[in-house]
C-alpha cells in the first residue's frame, strides 16, 4: 500500500494500541495500517494483518518436488551407471529411501527461506518503504496510509490524542 504515510511514534504498546483503534474507527482499512516495532506484536494488538500467510503450504509442495528429485537422482544413477553385483538387485531400495528423504528435506528448507522471504517482500533495497530506526530505542511506530487533506488531519489528531511522541508524513509504502 503506497501513498502518503503518516508515521506516529509511541512510547509503548498501550498508546500505540489506542492510536490503532482510533485510526480504524476513522474508518481506515486494515491494509492501510501497520506497525513498525523492534519486537513482534500479537496480531490485533495494534494493527491487524489482513493478508493470510500462504507460503507454508507451498513448502509442503516443494517437499514433494524434492522427494521426486531425490528419487530421480537415485533411480537415474542405478539405470545410467548400473552396478552389477551377483545376486543383488540393480535398484537398491534403502539408499533410494535415504537420498529421497534428504533431498526432500533440502528442498523444503530452501523453499522456506525463499518463499518466506518472498512473502515478506524481501530482499528489498530501495528506500521507498517507510522506516523508523527509533524502534530500536523501545518505540513503536504506527504507520497509516491516508488521503491528504481531511483524512490526514483526522488521523494526525487521533495519533496525537493517543499520545504520539512524534508525528511525521512521508511519501512511500508501508
Amino acid at each position, binding site marked *: 500500500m503506497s501513498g502518503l504515510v503518516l508515521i506516529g511514534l509511541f512510547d*509503548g504498546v498501550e498508546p500505540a494500541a489506542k492510536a490503532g483503534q482510533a485510526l480504524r474507527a476513522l474508518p481506515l482499512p486494515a491494509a492501510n495500517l*501497520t*506497525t*513498525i*516495532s*523492534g*519486537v*513482534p*506484536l*500479537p*496480531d*490485533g*494488538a*495494534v*494493527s491487524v*494483518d489482513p*493478508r493470510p*500467510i500462504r*507460503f*507454508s503450504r507451498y*513448502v509442503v509442495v516443494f517437499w514433494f518436488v524434492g522427494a521426486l528429485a531425490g528419487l530421480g*537422482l*537415485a533411480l537415474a*544413477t*542405478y539405470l*545410467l*551407471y548400473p*552396478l552389477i553385483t551377483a545376486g543383488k538387485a540393480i535398484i*537398491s531400495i534403502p*539408499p*533410494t529411501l*535415504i*537420498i529421497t528423504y*534428504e*533431498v526432500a*528435506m*533440502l528442498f*523444503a*528448507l*530452501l523453499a*522456506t*527461506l525463499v518463499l*518466506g*522471504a518472498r*512473502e*515478506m*517482500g*524481501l*530482499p*528489498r*533495497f530501495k528506500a521507498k*518503504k*517507510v522506516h523508523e*530506526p527509533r*524502534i*530500536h*530505542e*523501545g518505540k513503536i511506530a504506527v*504507520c497509516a496510509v491516508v488521503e491528504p487533506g481531511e483524512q490526514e488531519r483526522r488521523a494526525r489528531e487521533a495519533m496525537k490524542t493517543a499520545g504520539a511522541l512524534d508525528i511525521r508524513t512521508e511519501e512511500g509504502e*508501508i
Partner: protein
Amino acid sequence: MSGEHLLARTDEAQLYRDLSRSNLVTTWKWFAGAGTLALVLLWGIGVFVYMMMTGMGVTGLNRPVFWGILIVNFVFWIGLSHSGTLISAILRLTHATWRAPILRAAEAMTAFSLMVGGLFPLIHLGRNWRFYYTIPYPNERGLWPNMRSPLMWDAVAINTYLIGSLTFLYVGMIPDLAILRDKSEGWRRMLYSILSLGFRGTHAEWRRYHRASTLFAILIIPVAVSVHSIVSWDFAMAKVPGWHSTIFAPYFVVGAIFSGIAGVVLVMTVLRRVFRLERVLTPLHFDNLGKLLCMMSLIWGYFYFAEFLTVWYNRNPEEWEVFSSYGKSYLPVFLLMIMCNFVIPFPMLCMKKVRRSIPAISIASFLVVVGMYCERILIVTASLARRNDPFIWHNYFPTWVELSITAASFAMFGLLYMIFSKIFPIMAISDIKERLFHTTERAFGGASAEAIARVEEGEEEGSA
C-alpha cells in the same frame, strides 16, 4: 511492583551495548587469540600439504586400521554439531522462555562444527585432489558416485544439514542484522544492509518471520536426527565386529546430543567470560542445560550398557574380542570414556550447586567432550584393530601428522567462532528483547514472580 513489561524498564541502548560488545569492542587479546589460532591452523594446513605430497604412509594408518583419528575427528565434530541447531529448534518450538541467550551461540556452534567436520573425509581421502569424483556430474570417464555407499548418503545428509543449519542461523539473525544496520556506519552498515535484506520490523514481516522460523525449527529437527543416524550407518552397514549393530543409529544420536550440549555449555562459558555477558547468560541457563546434560548422561549410560550387555552375555567370539580389547590395549581410553561420560558427570550434574556453578558445570562439560572423543576412538579404531582375522590384528596410534591436523581443526573452529563474533551479533538481540517484552512481574502474596504472555500461532487474534 509495576505492571510494565520488563523491556519498558530496560535501557535498550545499554542492552544493545551489552549484547553487541563483541561487535563494538576489539581488544589486543582478541587479536592475540585469533593470531595464535591462525598460526595453529596454518601449521595444520602445512602438515596436510606434507601428507598430501608424501602419501598416507605418514599417518598411523595400517592394515587393518584404515580409519584412524581423522575419521574420529569427523564423527566427533559432526556429533558436536548436532546439538546446536537441535537444541535451538526444540527450545523454539517448546517456547522455552529461557532460550533466547543460548540460541545464537548454539546455532553458530553447529555451523562451524559442520564446516570443520565436513573437511575430514576429504583430508582422509588420500589423493585429495580427486575429491571432485564424489560429486555427481557427467564426465568423460563415465564416473558417477555410487548411491549404494553409506559414504555417499553421508555427503548428501551433511550437505543438507549444513545448508539447513546455515539458513537457520541466518534467518534467526535477520532482525538483529536490521538493528545493527540502523546502528552502525561505514562498511558495517553496508554489509548489514545487504544481509538484513531490508527487514524493517513491520507487523506483516514479523508474522511471516515467525512462521518461517517455526517451519525451519520443525524441518531441521528430523534432518539433525537423520544426519547422525547416517554417520552411524557408515559403520553399522559394514560387517565389522563392534559396528554391525541395529542400536547404532539411536546410540550415535544420543551421543551426539550429549556431546553437543556439553559443547554449548563450554561455548557459553567462554562467551560469558570474554564478552562480559554475566547479566544475560545467568546460572539459570547453565542449570537448565545441566539438567539436559544429566539426563543425556543417563541415557548414554543406558545405551552403552545395553550394547555391551548383549555382547557380554552372548560372547560371540568376534564381537567379544573387540570388547575385551577395551580391557587390554585400550584400557586407558575405555576408563577415561566411562569416567568422563558417566561416573563423574552424572552424580556431579545431579547436584543443583554444581549445575548453578559455572566453573563446575564447565568442568563437567569438558569431561563429557573428552569422554565422547574417547568413545569415538574406541568405536572407530578398536573395532578395526580386532577385525575377523587375528593374524592381522594391529593396534593403531596416531602420528604427529594426524595430531597436528586434529589440533588445527580445534583452532579452525575457534577462529571461525572468533571471526563470527566480531562481525555478527553473538547474542540473539531480538529474541532477548522479545522475552523481556513478554515478561511482567506480578505479586504472589509477599513474593513476586515473572508472568510471561504468549501468543500461539493460529490462536484467536489479539489473545495474549
